[in-house]
């Protein structure tokens, strides 16, 4: 009798433990995160085929904080918003600026960093400055469907624009001289000119961002109506800002505070 009781209890215990485990697994919301993997130091793919960078670490920290089961999906930049809308993933964590134009289609979390755009040129450049007059007739390379492309189109009408699918291509074309200048985030370009590949080039200056075009910092892109997810992510951003996790990641990559004012 006691043996039977013991066995029954053991079974019951296992069953309870199993169901508790299940319940916990169910609570872990699965969130697929779209990222580009071509935007160092924020997100890039290394030779082992693994994603790395500031965005990736922040994404992992947010997922850990919010108890999400996260999985990354690599998506080309110009298909990022369509892919989110087509439900290929649930959130974009890829240094996407929060702009009015994008807000028409998708929703954003609060910002998780904010840095200004800059112009990079070759060290022996003929380009004198970063005003529209200085850039007259200059070939400018930017990544397509970025705020930088929109900025150049709106504010630098005298320059001629070339659009590239990823930053690596405009970088290659700046090195080879197919374009005379490139525009991107100051951190991205600043990091690059310090590498061997970018040793040809320098930062000419930072542009004054136009909030209407450049937005108010990088946020996490979400489909409209996903308010629970947005709330959870915003709470997680606040939490990692408060508990030092954000600073830890920040310091791993940057010598300054990227969160911005």
């Amino acid at each position, binding site marked *: 009798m006691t043996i039977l009781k013991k066995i029954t209890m053991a079974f019951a215990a296992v069953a309870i433990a199993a169901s508790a485990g299940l319940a916990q697994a169910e609570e872990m919301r699965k969130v697929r995160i779209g990222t580009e*993997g*071509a935007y160092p130091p924020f997100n890039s793919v290394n030779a082992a085929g693994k994603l790395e960078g500031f965005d990736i670490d922040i994404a992992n920290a947010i997922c850990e904080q919010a108890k999400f089961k996260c999985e990354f999906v690599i998506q080309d930049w110009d298909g990022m918003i369509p892919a989110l809308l087509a439900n*290929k993933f649930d959130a974009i964590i890829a240094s996407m600026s929060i702009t009015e134009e994008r807000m028409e289609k998708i929703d954003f979390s609060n910002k998780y960093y904010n840095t200004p755009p800059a112009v990079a040129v070759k060290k022996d450049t003929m380009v004198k400055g970063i005003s529209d007059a200085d850039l007259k007739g200059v070939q400018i390379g930017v990544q397509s469907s970025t705020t930088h492309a929109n900025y150049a189109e709106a504010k630098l009408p005298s320059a001629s624009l070339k659009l590239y699918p990823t930053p690596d291509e405009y970088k290659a074309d700046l090195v080879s001289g197919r374009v005379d200048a490139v525009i991107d985030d100051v951190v991205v370009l600043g990091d690059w000119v310090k590498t061997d590949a970018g040793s040809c080039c320098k930062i000419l200056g930072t542009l004054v961002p136009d909030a209407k075009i450049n937005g108010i910092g990088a946020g996490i892109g979400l489909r409209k109506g996903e308010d629970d997810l947005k709330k959870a992510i915003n709470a997680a951003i606040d939490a990692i800002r408060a508990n030092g996790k954000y600073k830890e990641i920040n310091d791993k990559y940057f010598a300054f505070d990227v969160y911005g004012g």
Partner: protein
Amino acid sequence: MDNLATLLSFGPEGWADEIAYGTFITVSLALATLPLGLLIGFFLALGKISNERAIQISADIYITIFRGLPELLTLFIVYFGIPIALNLVVHDLLGFDVVDVNSFLAGMMALGVVFSAYASEVFTSAFKGIDQGQYEGGHALGISNFNTMRLIILPQLIRLALPGLSNLWLILLKETALVSAIGLTDILRSSGIAARVSKELFLFFGIAFLIYLILSIISSLGIVAIERWSKRGEGVR
């Protein structure tokens, strides 16, 4: 040289494993697309030779559309358009959870419909090469329509269509490269990533070029073997 050996190694610092995986994806995609394209193409050809005007026109519309659109555009339309349309139907009307078309499936569908449009032309002209008497013979022997098609027409059809289809296979193999533009890590995309990260653009794009060339050569040799096999009954002339 040391650096080059590292880049081309299979380890975590090298890109050989990524590119090998890309090659696997390219070959799988082409192999998965082939039966789909052949099947649709065969039914399209049946439609083209049908006596029913409405079927003929329907097949013609299909062929005109998918033969006329750039493959790259078809790919984008399938990749971005089908999920939107599916979500509209499945999610908003039926209330089911959302569905996704991943880039492999999108590539398979897009390349499959394009392949079928071209394959239908090969099949149609092969059908024309089969004498009317073959159908009548089957009919006279009391063989059902289905079995006439299966046992009498199809074996001859395959032999007649083989050269055209082999050509289409070679085209398909090359067209899989376009899926790199919708994010599938095939040969071109994996070597493209390697090229960008390592800054060895010529090296890695050159490797991609060579892998495609090798795949084409293997295919050509395979095709020669299959054609010889299919002609084994014809005897020496």
